[in-house]
């Protein structure tokens, strides 16, 4: 992409240079496309220098041995695939992302409908309250959850003991630990779905509901044949976008469990951190995180289809 741009600029400067030599520079500077190119240059520098280049570097890095002295091809990848811990990490990441996104989408859908049904006067206040989890930085709010899950001082367990339920080892037992990290992610992410769906709900024209009501549609039928088809686009985009972000999550697992107990809650991000930074095996760590890429690429093909559609609409 960046190469294409420079090529284009070169070609333009060639054509501008040939006819009249005297004022080449000023003419070139005045050209719209040259100016436009210069204006996007910082953006290109950031994407090229700090995203594309490190990405390429990650691929190179992942094919070195631990001390980064020898090229070992794809050995890191095949080594990882034979490790049981890593196989579990793949499964846990999928479980974490898919489980959390389904719950977030459902809660967001319900809350958007509930808010939409409220009189407009109270809507703002309730919406503000419901957005609180999404406003607090997750690295900060997860500290509060961590304290709520504390093995001896858990406030949840205190409340449970009041109704005679035995204490739960929230972060100590693998099943509960997985549930806890997903719960915190749902808590943090559901409000985002809520506002996206609420915006979509507000954009559905009332006439459609009136027409459906005249045709004798029940509430569920209205939901199924009017609301959902009208919101389909935004539901898809939000789910796919959230899948990408949740899949690449780091903060919550890192703070709550740091992958434990017995690596049962590690996801790609935290495992790559442990292998790459904490154990000092950068090549293996980058191999771990590169495993995310094909999965993200599949998600994004779908997103991209919608995005290019929007670009065409904007251009046309």
């Amino acid at each position, binding site marked *: *992409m960046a190469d294409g741009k420079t090529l284009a600029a070169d070609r333009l400067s060639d054509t501008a240079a040939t006819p009249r030599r005297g004022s080449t520079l000023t003419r070139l500077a005045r050209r719209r496309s040259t100016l436009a190119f210069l*204006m*996007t240059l*910082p953006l290109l520098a950031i994407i090229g220098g700090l995203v594309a280049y490190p990405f390429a570097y990650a691929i190179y890095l992942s094919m070195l041995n631990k001390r980064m002295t020898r090229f070992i091809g794809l050995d890191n990848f095949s080594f990882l695939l034979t490790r049981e811990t890593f196989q579990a990490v793949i499964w846990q990441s999928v479980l974490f992302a898919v489980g959390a996104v389904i719950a977030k989408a459902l809660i967001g859908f319900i809350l958007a409908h509930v808010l939409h049904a409220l009189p407009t006067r109270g809507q703002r206040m309730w919406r503000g309250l419901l957005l609180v989890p999404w406003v607090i930085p997750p690295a*900060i709010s997860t500290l509060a959850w961590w304290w709520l899950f504390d093995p001896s001082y858990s406030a949840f367990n205190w409340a449970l003991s009041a109704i005679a339920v035995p204490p739960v080892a929230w972060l100590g037992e693998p099943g509960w630990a997985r549930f806890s990290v997903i719960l915190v992610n749902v808590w943090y992410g559901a409000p985002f779905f809520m*506002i996206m769906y609420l915006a979509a709900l507000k954009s559905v024209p009332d006439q459609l509901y009136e027409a459906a009501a005249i045709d004798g549609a*029940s509430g569920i039928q209205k939901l199924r044949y009017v609301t959902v088809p009208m919101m389909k686009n935004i539901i898809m985009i939000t789910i796919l976008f959230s899948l990408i972000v949740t899949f690449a999550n780091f903060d919550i697992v890192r703070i709550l469990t740091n992958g434990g107990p017995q690596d049962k809650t590690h996801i790609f*991000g935290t495992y790559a951190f442990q292998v790459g930074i904490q154990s000092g095996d950068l090549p293996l760590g980058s191999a771990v995180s590169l495993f995310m890429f094909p999965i993200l690429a599949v998600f*994004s093909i779908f997103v991209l289809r919608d995005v290019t559609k929007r670009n065409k*609409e904007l251009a046309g």
Partner: protein
Amino acid sequence: MSGASITAAGAAAPAYRGTGSLRRERRWALIGAYIALAVFVIFFITPPFHMLVTSLKSSAEIADLSSNPWIVKRPTLSNYWELLTQGNYLIHFRNSLIVTLSVVAITMVVSTVAAFALARMRFWGSAVLATGVFLTYLVPETLLFIPLFQILGGIGLYNNLISMILIYPTLTVPFCTWIMIGYFSSIPRELDEAALIDGANHFQMLWKIFVPVALPGILAAMIFAFTVSWAQFLYPMAFLVSSENMVLTVGIVSDLIRADTFVWGKIMAGALMAAAPPLLVYAFLMDYYIAGLTAGATKG
């Protein structure tokens, strides 16, 4: 529930009975809505509430297993006071401010100028670039931090706040450019033409027409950049090691958790104060942000 009312109305019932049942149906829907709201508000507010309660307790009260963790008997501000007078908390706060404000400034300049060029001055490859901007989300921070660790170490920026100011824009610029392209594209071309006739150059056009007209979008982009930079955790976690260079998100954990002693009262007080700036920003500017965030998505 609503199905029943419509069949009742459909069974040739008098009009007023139909409306009566509709109103009743509405009332039940509203009651259900408030119950659902209450449940979720409790779920959503519990952690920050517990954070506040704990931050007001003395260490002795927190350690007392027989006391109720949900209420505070002898509230004290000593946790806040100790954080603000001793230790590195204020340094972390200042570092967070420096990084966040710099990143917001850089992001806004880069993305506004680029979005203007991409939205208005079509050139070879501009459509590809507009899509390419979005594609950077395919390469998340969890994939980039290891190569960046190596690259930053190579140029001597490891454990340096400047590296944060350098890297954070990769998280903010793509999406902000994306928002701004949407806003700029919706400005009618007649405005540009009027400006061009009056002899404005492209920068005057951007500064005197596009920026004021697209102010809600710019505000939304600024809030996004602020939120992301304030909340970033992985990069400081990986690249900052000494306490006086840390930002809030990592500083609280690293300074207040020494060995196995958890000073929970102070951790919660520190976390609450760290959450305050974004909470304040949202309290005043939430509508702009939501409008900016959802505008692009609902348009498609």
